[in-house]
């Protein structure tokens, strides 16, 4: 018996879009932490 999940083209497209969104969110978080760090260093140290 074939247990793999067959996706319709629409579901496939939605999955691609969801994965892209997760990827972009992670990249944005990385960029944000980088910018916060730069800002804190510019303001004289990374202690909060």
């Amino acid at each position, binding site marked *: 018996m074939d247990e793999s999940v067959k*996706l319709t083209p629409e579901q496939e497209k*939605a999955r691609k*879009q969801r994965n892209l969104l997760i990827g972009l969110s992670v990249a944005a*978080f990385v960029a*944000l932490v980088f910018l*916060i760090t730069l*800002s*804190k260093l510019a303001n004289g140290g990374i202690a*909060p």
Partner: protein
Amino acid sequence: MVDLSVTEARTATAADYFALLKPRVMSLVVFTALVGYVAAPGAGDWVLGFASILALALGAGASGALNMWYDADIDALMSRTKARPIPSGRVPKEEALTLGVALSIFSVLTMQLAAGPLAAALLAFTIVFYAVVYTMWLKRSTAQNIVIGGLAGALPPAIAWAAKTGSLSLEPLILVAIIFFWTPPHFWSLSLLTRRDYAAADVPMLPVTAGARATRLSIFVYALIVAPLAFAPVLTGLGHTIYAATSSLGGLAFVALAARVAFSRAGEDMGAKADAPARRMFAYSILYLFALFAALLIERLV
């Protein structure tokens, strides 16, 4: 074994996940937080300011997702909420929980990184208060649900203030008090129009438990508290001429509309005409709060 058909075979898009974050509540949070940040003393740093307000927005979104996860059963029963992503079947319930928990952690971490422990702790408190105290406990057990739960929606300007200054003072707490006392008359006006939904879903909103008349009177009493309270920032020096004018005129109109509600038969199934004062009160309450905070913002920008 994980059933992949649940998580893979569906057409949920980015818009569905965004809807889980309650974007309209989020926009109010961002706006009041922005005002709290700009109004707080000190120069501030725009990157840290942006990160703090983003953290607040994500925290609010996390609360929204957790609320939709827990409330999926009652959301499915009410016409106002049954098109939400979970009751409509577009997003599995478990994913809203995952999204809510993940966003809670990321938002509090970001706040700690950008603004330090006080703002991060306040944000964590707000998320827990909304998701656990309001959603899981008060909402289904007492008619005072939105009165106490409103604290979560009221805190953002103070969190933003703490993010910029690292401390709290009387001024941001007055802003919190304004939103806190504004929430019940705002929400009760809506619930007069939708009380049948709440009754059907067995949610103890005030019109359901105490009746329409008691709700209309409560709206008026809270309006009498909000209007003078909204003038208080003038006395502490936070608000100036534009704010003083906005809060005086806006407050008078708020009380006047609340009085119209109090003397109406709104929420008694007497038709759209009888309900009109409550509908006007609800619409105006949004404009009123927006105008108050916009006035503070304008005074800082010009």
